[in-house]
């Protein structure tokens, strides 16, 4: 990830995928249900967007400011210092609150793995970041699914990274095919 300053491109595969998905699904609606149905869909989408987009804009603001306030050097420093069960619990906590996308999380995991951090802690960190993730809760879940659903989802996801961390520690200790060879990574 050498092009860290470039950031995400605006017109890349993701954009064209979305554009073609909208075109194809829209054509199918016109074909099967006629143009009034297309108009209905536009109307429904507009009223959804009206509620969701302001929340997403605020979510992005919160996420970006958190990234500035909690630089990932701090995250890495705290993650690398611990060991054992303490490390798994702490990694879960750090992964939960750590903002940023995959281009932030994965380099941290690689660097810490090379530096000798426990694999249970790394898996707990990554799983907490993806499955519990406060950042995702704020930017995506609350706008789309509502605060109540988001809270329930948050509570029910909390055990996942902790169990995964302990399981990973056991599995990599007992099955050699699952032992990550950090020194051989590119």
């Amino acid at each position, binding site marked *: 990830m050498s092009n860290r300053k470039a950031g995400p491109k605006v017109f890349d595969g*993701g954009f064209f995928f979305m554009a073609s998905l909208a075109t194809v699904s829209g054509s199918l609606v016109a074909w099967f249900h006629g143009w009034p149905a297309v108009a209905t869909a536009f109307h429904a989408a507009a009223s959804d967007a009206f509620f969701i987009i302001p929340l997403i804009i605020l979510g992005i603001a919160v996420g*970006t400011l958190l990234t500035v306030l909690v630089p990932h050097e701090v995250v890495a420093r705290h993650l690398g210092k611990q060991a054992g069960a303490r490390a798994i619990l702490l990694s879960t906590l750090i992964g939960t609150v750590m903002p940023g996308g995959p281009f932030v999380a994965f380099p941290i995991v690689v660097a810490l793995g090379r530096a000798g951090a426990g694999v249970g802690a790394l898996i707990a960190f990554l799983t907490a970041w993806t499955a519990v993730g406060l950042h995702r809760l704020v930017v995506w879940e609350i706008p789309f699914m509502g605060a109540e659903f988001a809270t329930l989802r948050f509570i029910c996801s909390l055990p996942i990274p902790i169990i995964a961390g302990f399981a990973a520690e056991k599995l990599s200790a007992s099955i050699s095919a699952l032992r990550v060879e950090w020194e051989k990574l590119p």
Partner: protein
Amino acid sequence: MMPTLAFLAFLAVMLLAMTIVRHPEEMPRALRRMRAQLMVFGLRLPLAILSASFISILVPPDAVAPYIGPESGLPGILAAVLFGAMIPGGPILTFPLALVIWRTGAGEAQMIALLASWSVFAMHRIISFELPMIGARFVALRLASSGLLPILSGLMAMALLFLWPR
């Protein structure tokens, strides 16, 4: 929605104040990052919401509820986990899609299992980040350790909803 909007606005203002006081030199970088993300989302998200709206018309109303409806229990949770594992996109695609599935009659516990499964399996992320950067062994270890846990999330949600019904 209004309390949520107010809460997020409050949070944003607090964080903005903290950033201005503690790291004023970082403000230009934060604003640039915000603008970049808004450009990306601003173009794609309306398209995703529109697609989701089209798809909700195309999907017959009884296509979802019998499988992952609120009454579908454990089999519904398993079906939701399977489906969540197959969603190939990031949040921009997944959340509009999840909203459609929910509105078509999926149960809350099943939705939680679906989203947990999507976040644990996340094919797109495995392919574009995890495999090239950390390798197959790490992916295998991670999936072996956490692959079954979305089922647990769904069951927990079911238990919580049973204990505190709305």
